């Protein structure tokens, strides 16, 4: 008990003494962790869009109603034999509807006005082993553009073939550019946050070098000397992390929630997505604190 009290007092004294520098470290940690979370949320948003628009497959073959079991079996086998195809799976109407409702759970304007069972068709969902040999698929199903330019298929039970290769490629590319871009900035900022936290610790140790000298002389262990500084680093990083999570919620409320209902057929991130990102931000904050502690205290504490 006496020990906890000691650590608490030492840490509080350290934060007070170093107020401005600690604030700089904290705000840098905040910005870094905010950008880190933002990158994760951007990736999540595009995952949702990709899921909604393509169902994460490169090719969808929509089937005529009512779907006959033997049609599904026959087409699955036929497609499975093509060298371009790596995977075929069947999504029935119920599953398609469930996915649709889940994606647009927060946009009742969409789910309420769409009669799912009528509009959403069952489909065979195909991933390609070799995207450049896509043409094998419409050829096998006897699909060709008609006079009006619409693709019609002669294979029985097939309504249409949707080629999502390009869309998927583009969405993935945009996701990559955006989230990797933001993530790179976040990494640089995390680096500065580490440097600044390490620096506050170092300045704190410098300000207390006489005390530390005496502590060593009277036989205080290294951990006894270090722990208050380590706690200080953790507090700075975690305050930054908490502020970052709040800021992400704010972004969600101010920017994302306004779009809800305005933009059709784009699923948007929800509170649960922000909450899912929070642990990663806390882990990143812990990493910042640990690295900063290791760097900041190395030089000062050789016996």
């Amino acid at each position, binding site marked *: 008990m*006496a*020990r906890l009290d*000691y650590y608490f007092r030492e840490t509080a004294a350290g934060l007070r003494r170093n107020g401005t520098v600690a604030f700089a470290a904290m705000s840098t940690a905040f910005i870094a962790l905010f950008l880190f979370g933002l990158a994760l949320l951007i990736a999540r948003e595009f995952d949702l869009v990709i899921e909604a628009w393509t169902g994460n497959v490169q090719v969808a073959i929509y089937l005529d109603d009512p779907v006959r079991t033997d049609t599904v079996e026959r087409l699955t086998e036929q497609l499975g034999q093509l060298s371009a195809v790596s995977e075929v799976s069947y999504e029935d109407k119920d599953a398609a509807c469930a996915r649709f409702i889940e994606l647009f759970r927060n946009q009742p304007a969409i789910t309420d006005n769409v009669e799912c069972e009528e509009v959403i068709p069952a489909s065979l969902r195909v991933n390609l082993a070799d995207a450049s040999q896509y043409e094998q698929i419409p050829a096998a199903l006897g699909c060709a553009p008609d006079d009006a330019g619409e693709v019609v298929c002669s294979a029985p039970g097939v309504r249409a073939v949707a080629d999502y290769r390009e869309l998927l490629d583009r969405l993935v590319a945009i996701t990559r550019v955006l989230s990797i871009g933001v993530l790179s900035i976040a990494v640089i900022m995390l680096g500065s946050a580490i440097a600044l936290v390490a620096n506050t610790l170092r300045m704190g140790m410098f300000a207390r070098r*006489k*005390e530390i*000298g*005496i*502590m*060593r*002389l*009277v*036989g*205080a*262990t*290294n951990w*006894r*000397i270090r722990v208050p500084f380590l706690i200080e680093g953790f507090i700075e990083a975690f305050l930054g992390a908490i502020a970052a999570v709040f800021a992400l919620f704010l972004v969600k409320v101010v920017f994302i929630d306004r779009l809800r209902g305005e933009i059709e057929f784009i699923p948007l991130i929800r509170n649960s997505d922000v909450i899912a990102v929070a642990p990663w931000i806390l882990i990143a904050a812990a990493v910042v604190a640990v690295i900063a502690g290791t760097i900041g205290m190395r030089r000062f504490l050789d*016996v």
Partner: protein
Amino acid sequence: MISLQHVTKTYKNGVTALDGVDLEIQKGEFVFVVGPSGSGKSTLIRLLLKEEEVTKGQVYVAGKALEKITPWKVPHLRRNIGTVFQDYKLLQDKTSFENVSFALEVIGKPKHVIDQRVPEILDYVGLGDKLNSYPDELSGGEQQRVSIARACVNRPLVLLADEPTGNLDPNTSVDIMRLLDKVNKIGTTVVMATHDQAIVDAMRKRVVELEQGKLVRDQSRGVYS
């Protein structure tokens, strides 16, 4: 209690501070280490605290070979050794009581031990009425008494004093020596580096003289030169 065997210490810059020193100090002894500046007195003290490593030879303190003490056990060695310096090394923002209790607090002693021992030792060094004075409210001699109290509060086996009277006038120095003698009388081994001739001559204790890192004289009941 303390044993040096063929101890040589050469610093990285090539300076040899101690050169083949052999020295045995028994439990309860009072030993002056004398010699001009740069003769190796401070290096000797730093070696005993394991603030420096020997280049050659062996150092034993309280029966332990220092070279075998791992870095993370060094604090436990230092808990058995009290240290006093010329410049007192007191924390200016702490009272006498707090300066002494700090030494116990940072080695994890419980509060009831601190509350009992700190006033006791401050009384012992003659500062029973100055528990709440800050260092700048105390005279040099009183500040050195606080530092001796801090060095002794954890009941060390050995007290190392590096020029403890260096900043004090002759009369105050005599008081401090009386106090160190008193600490010695209760069984603490005292090793004091000094070049205060008057004091060494007056005390008539064992004198070890260093010159350019070599032990040139070891005399019981000796004088400065």
